[in-house]
């Protein structure tokens, strides 16, 4: 291997890490809701997109400062998560899984349509938080945002791990996920936990959305990133927080590697479907993912 091919490889891996971190953030949102409420939220990508749009509107149209806009976005998303849970998900608690899957799909379609209804279909450049100056080490070029995305994801995941292990609310969430009736008997307000997990997932989605918008742009197509993050969540295991980040990063890196090395061999298009091929293989050999807990079914 020559020196330049090594640095190209390293470059591709680093780009993959940045994209993978965003997948990991979206996957973390899936995991959080799934862990607490047992619902797989197909609208996670849309929540991410709305977070980015809120922040974009606050900065570019209202004219707030970056920090203020960012914090305000988080608050808005927190409230949005609670409202969605109370209005749409709560009436369906205990209903068949088909209804629950369909309602989040319906929600995804609605939010998608609302976004293009309100903001139009145009692609907007996001006012970047970071300098566009490129950092270079030995022919490997990185934008500061890529490094920031990676580390903020890492911090969020570590934060959530500690939150679930140590804090009272985190333990209550795990208890609720395990057995709702017993959790209620232990004095946990299951309803509050449900709302809270949606609110927190919406916040994570907003962070992911703002990061993605910083990397690229804001547009209604952004929500596709949510679909691409399904494989990440499944690969890691739907109920595992470390699984979400590892799955996200594996998918991100595999995808960029496939794009860089396989695309011209197979005539293009490999990058887009790599994640889904990995997904199908994983579902065939290890359906509960790398770190997921196996469910036992009794008659």
């Amino acid at each position, binding site marked *: 291997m020559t020196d330049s091919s090594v640095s190209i490889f390293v470059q591709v891996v680093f780009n993959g890490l940045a994209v993978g971190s965003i997948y990991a953030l979206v996957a973390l949102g899936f995991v959080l809701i799934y862990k607490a409420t047992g619902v*797989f939220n197909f609208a996670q990508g849309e929540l991410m997109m709305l977070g980015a749009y809120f922040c974009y509107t606050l900065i570019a149209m209202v004219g707030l400062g970056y920090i203020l806009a960012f914090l305000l976005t988080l608050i808005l998303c927190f409230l949005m998560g609670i409202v969605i849970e109370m209005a749409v998900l709560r009436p369906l608690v205990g209903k068949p899984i088909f209804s629950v899957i369909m309602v989040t799909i319906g929600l995804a379609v609605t939010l998608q*349509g609302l976004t293009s209804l309100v903001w139009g279909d145009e692609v907007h450049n996001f006012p970047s938080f970071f300098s566009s100056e490129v950092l270079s080490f030995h022919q490997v070029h990185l934008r500061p945002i890529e490094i920031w995305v990676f580390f903020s994801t890492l911090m969020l995941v570590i934060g959530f791990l500690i939150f679930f292990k140590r804090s009272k609310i985190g333990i209550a969430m795990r208890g609720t996920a395990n057995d709702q009736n017993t959790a209620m008997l232990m004095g946990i307000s299951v309803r509050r936990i449900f709302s809270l997990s949606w609110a927190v997932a919406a916040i994570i989605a907003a962070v992911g959305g703002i990061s993605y918008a910083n990397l690229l742009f804001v547009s209604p197509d952004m929500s596709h990133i949510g679909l691409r993050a*399904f494989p990440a969540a499944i690969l890691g295991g739907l109920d595992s927080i470390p699984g979400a980040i590892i799955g996200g990063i594996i998918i991100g890196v595999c995808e960029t590697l496939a794009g860089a090395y396989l695309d011209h061999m197979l005539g293009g298009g490999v990058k887009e479907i790599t994640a889904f091929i990995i*997904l199908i293989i994983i579902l065939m050999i290890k359906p509960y993912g790398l770190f997921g807990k196996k469910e036992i079914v009794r008659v």
Partner: protein
Amino acid sequence: MLNGHYKVSYRDDVKIFQTGFVKFWLFLFLAFCLIFPLIADRYFIYLANLCMIAILGAIGLNILVGYTGLISIGHAAFLAIGAYSSTIMMNRFNVPFVLAVPLGGIMAALAGLIVAIPSLRLKGLYIAITTFAFGFIIQHVIVRWDSITGGPDGLTAPPVALLGVSLDSDSRYYYFLLVLVILLTAFARNLFRTRIGRAFIAIRDHDVAAEVMGIDLVKYKILSFCISSFYAGIAGAAFAAYLKFITFEHFTLRLSIDYLAMIVVGGFGSILGSIFGAVFITLLPEAVQTLTDLVREDFPLLTTRFAALKTVISGMIIVLFLLFEPEGIYGRWKKIKAYWTNWPFTY
């Protein structure tokens, strides 16, 4: 007299026409369907044709989702396979239309077989995600395999003829579709009077219990996938030959979601419900169009962003039906019927 239907044998219970009343109205409705193209505007015939294509696909999806309980978010992929394979067969190998349509269905059924394999170990959500991934992969294959599928430029279907009669006008195609719909609806309706259909229902209600009763899960899950994708393939082939032009954009995730919406709106696990849902979801954009035309002057933005408005409304329809009428239009229909038969009693 009519309050409640008393059945004294299983034979009565599985009869297709439960009462003479139903039979009478059904035949009247069929007669109406037969003369419909003679009295209706060309545009309405066009809409009726779209509805009938949707009915084929929706019945297929309901067999898989509503009756067997295997959730599929990749129905569009099977429609695409049916549409593309029948069109390619007609274009390249001069296969007659009468064969190309069932062959399209069979190709889709074979694809269903492939998807069924990873689904055997999975249930619920995981099957939904597998079929979703399959839908995505098929869409990309269509775009990239341009030597066969025409890639982003799409494919043009040749003019079609059935047994020497050219199906060039909307009303001729209408009769072709009507026959197809009647045949396949009757097949589906009868399917659930047989062992196979009952096995599907048992799997939906509890798969482990079904296996304990002696139902071979592998066999019946694969069969359900095949039958469902066969219907989708037929619908796709009919769609391609009707529109004369197909691209990958016809078969996106949105189409899969629209078909799921038909099941939700029409009624989960009901053939009649699939028909209601297919008609409702197909006519919905038209209704929205008519309504926005009324308020065009006051809200000019609605016309420019009409596609977004349609998206919002179809999403809302899914959510609202799930929240307020989970049994769909068919459930509401049953309730209204029960109300009238039992009146003045409540049950």
